């Protein structure tokens, strides 16, 4: 497993900043009514998304969930087209027909997101099945939250992936909350890795606030699955800095909890880490500036873009 050099780390930081800036911008556009619909932001999950996706090949598969802007960006999606899609514009990845929860950018390996909790997990198994059938050594990643941990589909998938030694990396982003209730209201299980261990799937828990810790776990998991050793499970402890969806004031969160986690912000921590490692302050700052400039451009692009023609409501029902 290669340790990243400074350039590599700066690239990670820039990608994290890209996500942070993107999500903040989406929130801003939503407040202005320029983005509508059901939007779930991943502010605070940048360490997980970038840590995992940066360990993947361009042609590896990622399947996201309802909170997957970060995953798509981490996998290399174009932010202009992504923003346009969330804004429901024709220039979006899905011509404005998918929206925030159904992003699809297959050319960068982000196959699809979905609004069905846990629904992407079986899809990821399918992509892994394609890999083993064609022998193309691609790996498939499914991102899901702690709320999906109790879904029957996850357990069926763990069993099947283990049985068939499918190259799947199950990534559970445990942010402690499923919609509006804490994990403890959903299960007595505290460590979601326990679900994987039952099927003898190697499982680790890592701190989502530390992008390098996530990256190291991802490197290990991806290498193993790509080598045909079967599926892996990574539980990433993250924090959801905003409510479940835009508009949710998250009154159910304890204020002290928020303060505690704000100090575990993956972006702030990694920035500090690079600073301690002696990277120049303006080099570090440049990553944020570059990211914000990209996102400003994406917002401009998305807001100016036109909506899809009305006939698009009934096209693409079937492949011709």
């Amino acid at each position: 497993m290669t340790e990243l050099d400074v350039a590599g780390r700066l690239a990670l930081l820039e990608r994290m900043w890209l996500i942070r800036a993107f999500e903040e911008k989406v929130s801003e556009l939503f407040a202005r009514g320029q983005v509508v619909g059901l939007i779930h932001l991943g502010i605070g999950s940048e360490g997980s998304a970038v840590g995992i996706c940066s360990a993947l090949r361009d042609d590896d598969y990622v399947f996201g969930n309802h909170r997957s802007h970060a995953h798509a960006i981490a996998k290399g999606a174009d932010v202009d087209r992504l923003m346009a899609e969330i804004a429901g514009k024709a220039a979006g990845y899905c011509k404005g027909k998918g929206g925030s929860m159904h992003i699809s950018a297959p050319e960068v390996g982000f196959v699809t997101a979905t609004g069905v909790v846990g629904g992407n997990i079986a899809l990821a198994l399918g992509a892994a099945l394609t890999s083993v059938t064609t022998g193309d050594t691609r790996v498939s990643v499914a991102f899901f939250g702690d709320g999906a941990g109790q879904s029957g589909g996850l357990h069926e998938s763990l069993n099947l992936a283990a049985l068939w030694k499918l190259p799947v990396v199950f990534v559970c982003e445990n942010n402690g909350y499923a919609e509006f209730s804490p994990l403890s209201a959903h299960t007595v299980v505290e460590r979601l890795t326990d679900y994987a261990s039952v099927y003898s799937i190697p499982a680790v828990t890592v701190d989502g606030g530390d992008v390098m810790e996530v990256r190291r776990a991802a490197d290990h998991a991806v290498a193993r699955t790509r080598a045909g050793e079967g599926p892996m499970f990574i539980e990433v402890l993250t924090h959801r800095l905003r409510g479940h969806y835009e508009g949710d004031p998250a009154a159910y969160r304890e204020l002290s909890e928020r303060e505690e986690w704000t100090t575990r912000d993956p972006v702030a921590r990694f920035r500090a880490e690079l600073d301690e490692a002696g990277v120049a302050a303006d080099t570090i700052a440049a990553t944020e500036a570059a990211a914000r400039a990209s996102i400003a451009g994406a917002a401009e692009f998305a807001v100016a873009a036109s909506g899809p023609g009305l006939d698009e409501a009934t096209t693409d029902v079937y492949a011709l």
Partner: protein
Amino acid sequence: MTTELRFIDAIHAGLQASLAADDAVVVIGEDVTYGGPFGATKGLADEFGRHRVRDTPISEATVMGMATGAAVTGLRPVVEVMFVDFITLAMDQLVNHAAKLHFMSGGQLRVPLTVRVQGGVRGRFGAHHSQSLESWFTHTPGLKVVAPAFPGDAKALLEAAIADDNPVVYLEHRGLYWDKGPMHSDPVDGAVVRRPGADVTIVSYSKMVHSALAAAERLAESGVGAEVIDLRWLEPLDTATVFESVSKTGRAVVAHEAVTRGGLGAEIAATIQREAFAELLAPVARVGAAFAPVAAAADLEDAFLPGLAEIERAASSLMTFGPTPA
């Protein structure tokens, strides 16, 4: 000399041909290496390898989702659901993913998935093994649905379904499995007129086509010419063939084994009356099962199941419909 095969063997032949023609085709389902409960997949694992014909656990939801995920990444999966009654467990993945990914992705993803399901009444198997659920699928935009009635179509339409880049639900009726019939290389699109007639059109599919043909024989004895249409594809519906026939006869009966209320017959009847109202000499009649689950007892199952008698009765009543002569 045309090959004659039993329906179940025609399915086998269709799978075999598809597996041979395209490496991307894989067959997955419960007990498929064994051959499944009726032998449709027998021997295929040995012939094509266990990496292409795979047994799954009893996890319909995940198996359907996995097949969908494989379909959008380059495989052409044929997933078997042992009884259509159990597709309920897989409906989320089928309806929310397989049917919609092409649309939601703005056309970027294609879902060349085939779902083979067996159903219908046969053998006193009771309420969980006897349903006809095709209107759930025809009511879902994005799914195609096909229901062969003859062995030749069983093979040809299965190959067409597998070759289609859309998710296709391929409906089998186990009551047809042991019928023998010739293979063909006729067109696979659209409906087929199985028997020409001038007086009344009977639109049907799957096993009911045979009841319709038998009813047509009986009607002929009393001088009524029934034209029997075998729809084959339930989505897309070949309304052109139906309208052409009704324009000629002026009378239509739609017959299926599924429950009448909310069944596909309702859609077809509504479409006929909207498009061919001027040609109609009588209302469109529907023949289907009563609005009840399927009882297990032999006589109750028989009472539930519509067939020749109901179709004949419906067609005859259309012949006498109209103002009473002075």
